[in-house]
């Protein structure tokens, strides 16, 4: 069986950054497996600008951002197999994959970096009543059709869900001549970034109806219209608030789900909150030597943070292969939280194993104004950060430094608290 020190599953932003960072950490035996015919993943269809402000201090489009990392991978001569589907990862890190050239093959991996990204929540998962005509697409499918294939999915559009891809597609379809009639969002707040509401909806006078959902889809062969209604505090439609919108297309932008079929098969422990692997400070999953980063771990808002996280996973995978990552995991401290966060990534931290700093990322469960985000080591507050607004649609982060632990001494509890200011 072929042996490779680090196998990276997925050649999108996370996989590319992990590969380049693993190489820079001294590792030379690296293989990226990518199911598409090109590297770059979802960035290829994200032709809008706004990527890379943190990483490159410039505002790039998705394809430009991807190219920067593809160039890094190419310059380092890192091996990639395109059009290659990974079928299985065993707990012993044997990766089974297939493509048209090699057929089915297995690789014994020293370490694996999971970088499979995420998928959109489908109509089937949303339980929308009504017929099943043509004209219902996930926002990402419409994005691919318009930007890569060059087809317009429809002319009169209603969008359910205010995730960023839906907002971006509201603008994109408008620019291509479609009429976007309304964006309906079930929650009382938007799921997307505020800047996207401004530049994708407000700029074009597209209404956003919060606390609204689709209660019926009309049309047998093709969508002819949808009915939306207001919902109450338990997300139940309120009778009498129904409004009919005639349209030929319904786009769904109702959340993203990390794509972890392979992780699950391998026996990686998954979080019921993020739907991604539970990882420690090294971004290592419950299986030693299997790391995860990017949207497969938890859905991000910004690719810049995906790249940063994935680079850390790549470096840690290289350290694992070298034997520099201590295998003893009995000193991991679970990160506790109160007052708002729904989860943290990482979920546990071993101060002895962390580098100089660990970035802790989390999301809150509701819109909160005027808060402090505090981090405690036992009862000592070591971080105190003011936040004017926190929202589920915007990921938060805290940087926990090794020096804080050194100053505090023996630590048995780490707690993140969101407190009223």
């Amino acid at each position, binding site marked *: 069986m072929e042996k490779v020190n680090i196998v990276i599953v997925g050649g999108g932003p996370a996989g590319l950054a992990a590969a380049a960072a693993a190489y820079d950490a001294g590792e030379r035996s690296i293989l990226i497996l990518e199911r598409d015919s090109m590297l770059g993943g979802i960035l*290829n269809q994200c*032709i809008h600008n706004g990527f890379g402000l943190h990483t490159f201090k410039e505002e790039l*489009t998705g394809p430009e951002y991807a190219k920067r990392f593809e160039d890094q991978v190419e310059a380092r001569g890192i091996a990639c197999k395109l059009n290659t589907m990974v079928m299985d990862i065993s707990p012993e890190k044997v990766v089974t994959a297939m493509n048209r050239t090699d057929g089915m093959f297995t690789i014994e991996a020293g370490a694996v970096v999971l970088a499979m990204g995420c998928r959109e929540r489908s109509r089937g998962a949303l339980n929308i009543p009504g017929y099943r005509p043509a004209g219902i697409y996930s926002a990402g499918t419409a994005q691919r059709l*318009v930007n890569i294939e060059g087809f317009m999915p429809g002319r009169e559009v209603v969008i359910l869900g205010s995730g960023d891809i839906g907002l971006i597609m509201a603008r994109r379809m408008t*620019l291509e001549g479609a009429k976007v009639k309304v964006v309906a969002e079930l929650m009382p707040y938007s799921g997307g*970034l*505020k800047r996207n509401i401004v530049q994708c909806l407000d700029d074009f006078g597209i209404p956003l109806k919060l606390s609204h959902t689709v209660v019926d889809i009309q049309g047998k062969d093709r969508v002819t219209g949808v009915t939306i209604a207001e919902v109450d505090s338990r997300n139940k439609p309120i009778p009498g608030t129904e409004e009919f919108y005639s349209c030929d297309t319904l786009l769904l932008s109702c959340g993203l789900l990390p794509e972890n079929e392979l992780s699950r098969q391998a026996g990686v422990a998954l979080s019921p909150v993020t739907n991604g692997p539970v990882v420690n400070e090294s971004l290592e999953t419950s299986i030693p030597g299997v790391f995860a980063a990017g949207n497969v771990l938890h859905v991000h808002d910004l690719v810049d943070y995906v790249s940063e996280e994935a680079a850390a996973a790549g470096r840690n995978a290289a350290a694992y292969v070298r034997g520099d990552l201590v295998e003893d995991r009995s000193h991991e401290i679970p990160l506790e939280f109160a007052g708002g966060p729904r989860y943290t990534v990482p979920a546990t931290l071993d101060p002895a194993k962390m580098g100089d700093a660990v970035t802790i990322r989390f999301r809150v469960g509701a819109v909160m104004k005027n808060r402090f985000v505090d981090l405690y080591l036992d009862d000592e507050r070591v971080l105190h950060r003011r936040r*004017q607004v926190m929202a589920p649609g915007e990921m938060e982060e805290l940087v926990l430094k090794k020096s804080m632990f050194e100053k505090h001494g023996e630590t048995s509890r780490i707690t993140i608290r969101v407190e009223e200011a």
Partner: protein
Amino acid sequence: MEERNLICINCPMGCPLTVTLGDDGSVISVTGNTCPRGDAYGRKEVTNPTRIVTSSVPVSGAKSGMAMVSVKTASDIPKGKIFDVVSDIKKITVTAPVHIGDIVKANVAGTGIDMIATRDVE
């Protein structure tokens, strides 16, 4: 005096800005921003709002069979010109090879700004 409430679009923080305008339309103050870019955005947004426009146009002769190449305005253009820019590139087809930064339409819609490619197509 007029007050306008805006959301800064420079970064994902999305600061809520209040821009106070004098009777002659000049900006008296910008508040609510956390950084200087918010101040600049607030002033520009009420006087001369601009946006970068991105799109994709058909490409012929691509080795990979790729149908479209993504494009953007090389810098921001007046917000009121967005649709002029889009209609000005409606009929273009570019021929591969194309590289990031190649001009696909010079002086798009008379803005003085070029439309450039944002991906390589060999």
